[in-house]
């Protein structure tokens, strides 16, 4: 099970947080801060796994992260997930974002966090990996976006009518 997925930048500003277990808002912020603290002090060329912090998890949990330019992608998972598998998943996630946003950069995530959520929802559902095939994910995301667009068009036309 995946317990949480966090994306934050080099300064610890959250860009996306998805918790699959309920915490109140303050705890969530603390977890993000703590995770950032743990992850950011690590060198570039060390391994991508570390034992979870105090707040999230415990001995059974591990943080698996990847650093892309200005962003950290962190997954907190328990021992039923394969470490390298999750690392792969992060890669798939980022590649998918790249395809969907066309050369994704931090700004895309800042302004379109809802879209990022929608993409993520096609990969991970309720803490379990739903789909790892990038093409499948993109197909689903695209067709949902198409649907949205058609609706927005209708909506906009109704608005103009008013």
């Amino acid at each position, binding site marked *: 099970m995946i317990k949480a997925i966090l994306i934050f930048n080099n300064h610890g500003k959250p860009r996306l947080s998805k918790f699959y277990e309920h915490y109140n808002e303050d705890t969530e912020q603390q977890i993000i801060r703590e995770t950032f603290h743990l992850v950011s002090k690590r060198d570039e060329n060390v391994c991508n796994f*570390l*034992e979870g912090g105090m707040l999230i998890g415990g001995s059974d949990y591990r943080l698996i992260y990847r650093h892309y330019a200005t962003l950290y992608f962190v997954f907190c998972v328990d021992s039923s997930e394969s470490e390298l598998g999750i690392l792969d998943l992060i890669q798939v996630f980022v590649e998918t974002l790249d395809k969907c946003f066309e050369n994704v950069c931090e700004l895309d995530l800042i302004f379109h966090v*809802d879209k990022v959520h*929608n993409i993520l929802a096609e990969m991970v*559902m309720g803490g379990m990996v739903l789909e790892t095939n990038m093409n499948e994910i993109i197909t689903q995301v695209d067709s949902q976006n198409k649907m949205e667009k058609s609706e927005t068009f209708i909506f906009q036309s109704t608005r103009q009518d008013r």
Partner: protein
Amino acid sequence: MALKIVKGSIDRMFDKNLQDLVRGIRNHKEDEAKYISTCIDEIKQELKQDNIAVKANAVCKLTYLQMLGYDVSWAAFNIVEVMSSSKFTYKRIGYLAASQCFHESTDVIMLTTNQIRKDLSSPNQYDTGVALTGLSCFVTPDLARDLANDIMTLMSHTKPYIRKKAVLIMYKVFLKYPESLRPAFPRLKEKLEDPDPGVQSAAVNVICELARRNPKNYLSLAPLFFKLMTSSTNNWVLIKIIKLFGALTPLEPRLGKKLIEPLTNLIHRWEEIPSLKVCHMLISLSSGMPNHSASIQVSLRGPLPINSMFVVLVKYLGLLAMSKILKTHPKSVQSHKDLILQCLDDKDESIRLRALDLLYGMVSKKNLMEIVKKLMLHVDKAEGTTYRDELLTKIIDICSQSNYQYITNFEWYISILVELTRLEGTRHGHLIASQMLDVAIRVKAIRVFAVAQMATLLDNAHLMTGNVQRKGICEVLYAAAWICGEFSEHLENPTQTLEAMLRPKVATLPGHIQAVYVQNAAKLFATVLKSQEGNTDSTAAQETSQLMIERLPLFVQSANLEVQERASCILQLVKYIQKLQQKDVEVAEEVIALFDGELNPVAPKAQKKVPVPEGLDLDAWINEPPSESESEDDQPKAIFAKEETKHSRTRHTEVDEKELAKVSWAEHATQIVYLYSGVYQEAPGVEHIPVVQIDLSVPLKVPGLPMSDQYVKLEEERRQKERVEKKKKDKKKRKEKGGGRRKKRDSGPESEEDITPAHMVDIVTEEMPEDFIISSQVLKVQMSYLCVFRPSRPLADSEKLPVRSHRAAEALKSPAEDGEAEAAASLEPKKKSSKEKREKKKDKEKDRKVRMNSYFLPGNHTLFPLANDLEASFSLSSSSKENDIQGNLQDGSQVVVSVIFENKCDSFLKSMEFNVLDSLNSKLQRPEGSGPHDGLTVPFQLPPGVSNEARFVFTVQSIVMPQKLKGTLTFIVKNEDSSTHEKLDFKLHFTCSSYLITTPCYSDAFAKLLESGDLKCSSVRLEGVSQPFHHLLARICFHHHFSVVERVDSCASMYSRSIQGHHVCLLVKTSGQTVSIDAKCDEPTLLGNVLDEIKQTFSQC
């Protein structure tokens, strides 16, 4: 007009969408909070609008604010509104917001049930999909119950997109509503063979999660997974399946065998894929197959190439896998020791932590120092307290594991602990402190060294208290103060340490530490007084008292009650002492008596080993307690009684049995045991309470030379020397400080050998059992290590670690005794002017007859009133004396006899001289330069009614024969008007049993001994023994220093060792009134004599 205004405001507000909000926040870096609060106000306005589009936009913004840490639960109802929009765009926004901020206690969730049901059955697959995704995040038991059926229907939806989501969400439903598992399971199983790989993978995923919780129920699916494993090409699915098998194999061993072939095939298949993937699989393999050696062979191939590849990821995973393998196959990991040590140098903390975990299972006596040295280097280098603390606990864990079994040199360990105290800001001060106490108490030989180190710590206490950051470490001072106080006799410069303990700075320490400081300052004070009174100059002693009186008021004012109480108590005492000093009264002896008594480690479970005497009901009250409170009142009484026995023998009679029995046995049995030892002579009825048992079967772990078992002793010593040399090198490198202590430390090798006999006794008595116990403990610890990943210390602790609180029961020790060493050494020419007649026969005149009992108390043990009676009778015209002879300390050829002199007459006795006529075999040890017939002066005088004890050392050549030594005691009886010289003759009877030392032995060792074939056999029969078998055993244990190895019904095997290392094994059988004893020993003469003595013991009763 009004409509226009409304419309305009809608448009304006509507323009501010999520992007505008984000932009706005970015533009208001200075007053972000303020900006956001105005935004929230706007959002609240928007939510009041009827237009769903406006609401959805507001909810979308709220979702963003929620991520920034703002509570948006107040908008829950609006979120539900947006969720129920008919448009996918808004619905999605609503469900996203709900998944982010709804949880079980959100009350509007129950409003959603019908909406969700509607969405689930929507013709649009994305409506359904979005509902499932949202539901997966906030499903509650109620929702799960109400919707389980709908979701189950979806599991066979025509669209794979829906199917896979429905299958996956079932896991969440099972968690919240377990009853759904049974009806849904067949369909779930069916989905394992779904044509769509996504659905298949979802089903595998769900079953793996389920199996993690309860693998047993999923064994029946094994064949299905078997098929999947060979057919599937999806790596995700394969990993999951292998993990699943990992959970299943422990339950069904046959699976392991079956798996080998497909697994090897898989590995061959993967070997062509890039290396990372290979490792990936191997790791999952190794974690998956912990239980089958064949699979282990396969999986171990993983870590091997991994470590040479220097891929950090893989290194980490390799270590992780190793820790899993270590649980089942420690050997196969141990061969990678060097690699793991290398990993400690890795710059990656995660890897180092993993490696640390592994180290615990890999240390041995050989490599402990090396490993710890490495760890110490890391401690120095480490940044960040977390890792450093982790290191510290690991070092201590590694060293103290299995009862210090890997430590060969405790001086080294103490200095490691002292070094650790220099760490900045560690939280583990108390851990270090407890280790220091533990080692100092349990390893006698180390005390001198430990005390010196602790004194330095106390001296430098300001280094630890100065910084607030270092709060945790000041716990160490607790241990330091206590050790310095308790073992103050080893201090080189007690005055200085006393001064250090009374510094005003101490008042800044936490209360419990101050309390220990005060108490131990008093102990130190006693020691200082004693050393100073020896000098002719009495001012020094008075100065010390003055120092105490000046400094203690600081503590009397302490806010901590404990400190206050102790300080005022001690202050009064010191004031009183000062008064006495001014009158030139020598008080040191009395002061020191306050803190007299040896501290002995007793295993926590030792008490259980004391068998309950027959007919004694521990739960019954002998005197019905009038009330609850009364029963508590008894407690101090008993303690008081105990104190009395300790200090004055004349009071023994006051401690009658009744009073003892008042103490609730179950709670205070320990005290009673001590008490019995004190009243032993007065209460012959309780004579055979087998007090001895404490030592019989309880492993007291006080090894000076841990684990050095006799068979490999020589080799061990050689290694020891090597190690000491190595250690010296270490020390020079690491420790430039502490030059003053260097000379002591450097004498490492000699300290092992020429350490006091007491130390040797420790080893002799402990050696055998320790070895065997440890081997079984190692097993136990390893077992627990297997079960719980972090070895469960408590379990081991409860079995082995001693309780520190027992004052020893050298209960008869009297104040003057401390002087005995010097006294025994001083020699005066012997004056023979005996006047009185003596009768050397055993005719007993009732009044005057005096019995001499000898107690052999082997070194460190609590009490061991063993054996033999030295019968001698005297008749004295004017005075009578009671002489108790206690044997203490024994080593290869030395026996110490303690004699207690009691003056029973009304006159003052002085100038006592003790002399024994040496035989060829046994000689009284006299100071150098004195002749073989000179007597030894007893170093005290005896006022009427007073008793005191002196010790004499004998050298014994051969111990195979019992012998009697004749001796005389001359003394001057001083009356008010006259003084006369008198003389007392006595006989010391050294029985063979008294040369035996109770040595616990374990049945496997015992069996080995019997098999070895170098023991001679002998046997004896006792007729007409009517006492119960356990009494009989207890008597043998008690009088002849045996320990019971094993007892089966009416048959028992017993073991003992002589001081010269002869093994004596007994097999005692009883049938009716006949007892037969078959015995084996490597020295037939000794055996014969011991058997004769046993026979005699039983003929007497």
